[in-house]
């Protein structure tokens, strides 16, 4: 069984078609990438997976459940690291995690200390989000997504806007999650990031999936040295356009 399965998945905002009939299967315990430029439909696809955008057409099952009818059950079992920084500014770092447990109906137990340690934030437990650096905020967002012990974590551009060192720290966290068998879905427009952390990925452009495979497989198929080259060859334009 796939962790996430999409069939002819569609989403429009008025006349703008954000996701134009895509098919994909995210294998359990994989790190699966959605790669593409801004506006390719990656974030919209993520929002449909975690229930913050309604599915217009097609099918989408997450952890074997239909997202349109079993939203609460799906959300209880997944973690979300959004692109936008939406921490609770009125609470401390520790309280952010405690309140996340509350929303999930879970007790405030030792797991919160574990997560603070995991995200290298133990020393900042009593700080407010406003006092944290960009990298720390991102690690807190990741820790928050793990409070409910999710089977699947969706990360929307987890390293965008971070300095190289902070990016490395995020990659390390993701590697440790993979070792624990958590399925990861990551969107990114950094090709080298995809190449480094994803064991399978799709390339999206203008709402469609234009290529799919494991990174080495794609490089071989298109006879390119980098995913950047693969993308250029398929779409005829570079990522940053």
């Amino acid at each position: 069984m796939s962790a996430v399965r999409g069939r002819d998945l569609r989403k429009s905002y008025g006349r703008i078609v954000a996701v134009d009939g895509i098919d994909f299967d995210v294998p359990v315990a994989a790190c699966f990438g959605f790669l593409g430029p801004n506006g390719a439909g990656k974030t919209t696809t993520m929002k449909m997976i975690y229930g913050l955008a309604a599915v217009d057409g097609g099918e989408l099952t997450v952890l074997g459940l239909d997202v349109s009818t079993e939203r609460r059950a799906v959300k209880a079992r997944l973690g979300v690291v959004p692109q936008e920084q939406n921490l609770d500014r009125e609470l401390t770092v520790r309280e952010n995690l405690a309140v996340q447990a509350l929303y999930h109906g879970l007790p405030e137990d030792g797991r919160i200390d574990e997560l603070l340690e995991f995200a290298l934030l133990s020393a900042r437990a009593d700080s407010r989000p406003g006092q944290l650096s960009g990298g720390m905020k991102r690690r807190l967002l990741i820790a928050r997504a793990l409070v409910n012990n999710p089977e699947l974590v969706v990360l929307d551009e987890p390293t965008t806007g971070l300095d190289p060192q902070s990016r490395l720290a995020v990659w390390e966290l993701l590697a440790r999650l993979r070792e624990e068998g958590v399925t990861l879905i990551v969107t990114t427009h950094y090709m080298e990031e995809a190449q480094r952390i994803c064991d399978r990925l799709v390339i999206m452009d203008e709402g469609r999936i234009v290529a799919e495979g494991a990174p080495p497989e794609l490089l071989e198929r298109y006879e390119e040295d980098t995913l950047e080259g693969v993308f250029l060859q398929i779409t005829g334009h570079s990522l940053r356009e």
Partner: protein
Amino acid sequence: MTAADYVPSLPGATRVWRRDLRVFSKVWKGALLPQFFDPLFYLLAMGFGLGTYLATVNGIPYKQFVGPGLMASAVMWAATFETTWNIFFKMEETRLYDAVLTTPVEVQDLVLGEMFWAATRAVIYGTVFTTVVTLFGLVDSPWAVLAPLFLMLGGACFAMLGLTFTSLIKTMDWYSFYYTLFITPLFLFSGIFYPLDKLPDWVSVIAWFTPLYHLVEITRGLVLGPDALSVVGNAAWLTVVTAALFLIPVRAFRRRLVA
């Protein structure tokens, strides 16, 4: 949207309420004091100032007439602040609701939980002010001990009105209309400062359609000696309006937050 999208989960709503309580418990000293002075100054200025010249209204000492009315308006202001500026801030500035909605909490739980929180905050302010009114010796009836219950109901009604307005506006600028054309007129024309029974009939008819009028009727009744039937009737009005409005913010917030 299906019917299930309108059915709130009580545990979900309670979790939203508990988050707000947690934040309030950290800032309550700073938050409680300013809003408490407001009705107190009105009571001193109108009740004790104006009341010196205006001995009685319908046979009731003026300060005793104004006091319970201000209990009701304290609730209105508190529930309105909470569900206008504060909710808009959480929705559009900190994007807090985007995070909450990725947990099992759904939009309808959010609306119910925020309504209960705003009502809770309103009842805290209203009850503190009720204590002041009592200390000034303005309470005649033991039924006043039931005041918090009805202040909660009034708070819920104003919270639902605020949530409805907030769910429908695009920018914060619209709040100036809400305050100047709705909340402030209610404060002035709902029978807090003068009785409506000597005014033309149409004034009472309009007043009947506004929430603060019903809450003032209740609080004044409880403080001075209630007519049970009138209290029940006014409470029913507040309950029906609150419940009937619920679907509007649920629908509008879902469209806005779950596009």
